[in-house]
């Protein structure tokens, strides 16, 4: 199966984190915010100009750019 | 004649009082806010650092 990253999700779609492919510091920050293996994420909406995106995970909402979302691999 | 002298003194005092309190306040503020300076000299701690006695 092709690998999928979080920026490919459309609004309302859900996924589970498989891995984070990012430089150490960004990876650490994303994980601190709760993106750990297996956690469920859902894209809530996109900003008016299509980027950044709002996702919900662990019961709260977070926004991040598509560039960062691309680092989050889903399964 | 006397009223003129007294009123001059009163006005002068009011002005001095206002200027004095302005300078005092400014002086106190500059001491309180210059936290970055407390590292270098002893006894120069600003109010915040004294309160916390965490001057390094």
């Amino acid at each position, binding site marked *: 199966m092709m690998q999928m990253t979080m920026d490919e999700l459309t609004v309302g779609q859900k996924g589970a984190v498989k891995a984070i492919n990012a430089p150490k510091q960004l990876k650490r920050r994303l994980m601190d*915010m709760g993106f750990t293996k297996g956690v469920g994420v859902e894209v809530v909406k996109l900003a008016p100009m299509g980027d950044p995106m709002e996702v919900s995970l662990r019961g709260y909402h977070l926004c991040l750019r598509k560039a960062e979302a691309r680092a989050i691999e889903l399964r | 004649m006397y009223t003129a002298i007294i009123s001059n003194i009163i006005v002068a005092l009011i002005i001095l009082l206002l200027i004095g309190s302005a300078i005092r306040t400014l002086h106190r503020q500059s001491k309180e806010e210059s936290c*970055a300076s407390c590292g270098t000299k002893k006894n120069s701690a600003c109010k915040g650092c004294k309160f916390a006695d965490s001057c390094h």
Partner: protein
Amino acid sequence: MQTIALIGNPNCGKTTLFNTLTGTTAYVGNWPGVTVEKKEGLVNGHRILDLPGIYSLSPYSPEEKLSRRYILDEQPDLIIDVIDATNLERSLYLTTQLAELGRPLLLALNMEDLLEKEGIRIDARRLSQMTGCPVVQISASKGTGINALLEEIERSLEQKKLPMQPLFSNFIERYITTIIEDDYLHQIPKGRQMRWAAIKLLEADELFLSSMPAPPQAFQTYIEQARKELVEHYDDDVQAIIIDQRYKVAEHIAKDCQVRTKKAKQFNFDNLATSKFGAIPLFIAIMAAVFYLSIGLVGGYTTGWLESFFAFASVHIQTLADAMQVHPLLSGILVDGIIAGVGAVLTFVPQLFVLFLLLSILEDCGYMARIAFIMDRLMRSMGLSGKSIIPLVIGTGCSVPAIMSSRTIEHQKQRELTVIVTPFIPCGAKMPVFALMLTYFFPGKWFIAPLIYLLGILAVIITGLLARALDKHKETNAFILELPRYQIPAAKNVWLQTKDRTLGFIQKAGTIILLSSVIIYLLSSYSFTLQAVDAESSMLAILGRLISPLLAPLGFGFWQASVALLTGIAAKESIVSTLSVTIGTASLGSFFTPDTALSYMTFILLSSPCIAAISAMFKELGSKRKLLFAVLWQTGFAYVAALIIRSATLLLL
């Protein structure tokens, strides 16, 4: 005196709790060396310290480093971990790190009042059992549970009970146990816990490793072997494995302690606030409403009233002084210096109060994060970040807190650029100047005031685009921002912030403005031979004429305008007081014309800010060279813009 540290995630209600606990004893300062706010106060005779809001103790951001260093080195007698009860899992992630620091820990379960609406129930007793910490349910905004919290604080300070350590999977625990048993671990600095040190060793935490002597060869080999086995087993790096384990613990506790019931349906403002077509118009409308309410509505009435009050007062005091034969020098200082100068500035207090009030409501209600969210794309095309919008909005009140709030921007270049452009947004202190000029030269032309803001925004955009075009690297950076729940701001927070900012403005009127008014009056009434002379041949006029030729192309090459600009460096309101002392607000028309008034306003709008903002810029930029560049850029930009505006109006009028 015992010390308590207050810690928690951003947006967890920590500040509200701090304000509730400390009342009037709070003191706000800066941590030495960094521009991270340091807030302290007293509670029941104990010193309580508000640490910055953080998600983790991984020492990357200055806030995280500072919190970790504070707890490890200063050893507070108690840590109060404020937990957003509606966001238990992520809050507990921080708790798992705090528990390892070897200090007594007290969990304050905040937002108790929101739980029902969110459809969550929390078993506080179970949470206490699972963490080994006392747990108190509170609502900082409603003020409930505070007494119970105070009692628990006393009990915890007395008992000094340490929290339970979060346990990881057996595979990792094996290594941790072995490391703890090694003699090397006895060399850890005072106040550090063995378990914490062992985990930091496995993680290869640089801050910790640098505080330790070099380990013996055999031990070093063991650690490396352990790291290798961990990486192989989990197929990830060690730091990530530990984060993962911590979140597993947090998940486990949260799952056991909270029961989710049905979430109540509610109107979702967010659907409008971040909608595709409505978001940006709504933002503009909100900002327009803020200015209309403060400057238009409240300012429209109160400024006039206060002006006539001060005019009335000065006429009567002057008459009284003349009747009493007070020396003209003394009555002049009092009436034409102090009352004219300070009064001109104080007339703006009511509208600034409303402006500060509305801005602090905006800051506290959760909308700011949405503005950053919707504006990020746009701001990025200008070399800024979505988070840059927050300083720009706060900057309409005062540039100093605005510049400090640029701290949250991760990327250094974007942060510096934000610091440089924030003063382009007219702050509250520049408002008096514009109001004075506009009511005199353009009465009834309400549309000019918004144009001034637009010009400021334009300056931000042009600077941003230029900086982006000149930046060869075009590196991208992270933009990760929590979108907190919308909330009704706690009245106490809003009130404290508004009060502080308004009092700050009044205090400036009573200090800097008062002194500069007196000096300006004296300088403008005497010659260098200390003879009472006409203003035209006064010391001030001579000094002003030194720089006025430079400003002549802009149309205001007379000494009064130059001197006013100089005093504006101390505080922008000084421009108004200086003009009213040297020219008199009624006779502006004999010096300025509509086109020079516009160019004067443009120059004031864009040229370098007051000394307080300059020193805030210096702290954030961290280098004299960068500061010099910023100030020169701002002033140069202002000069060119004023020149263009004047030429354009001359052509059009």
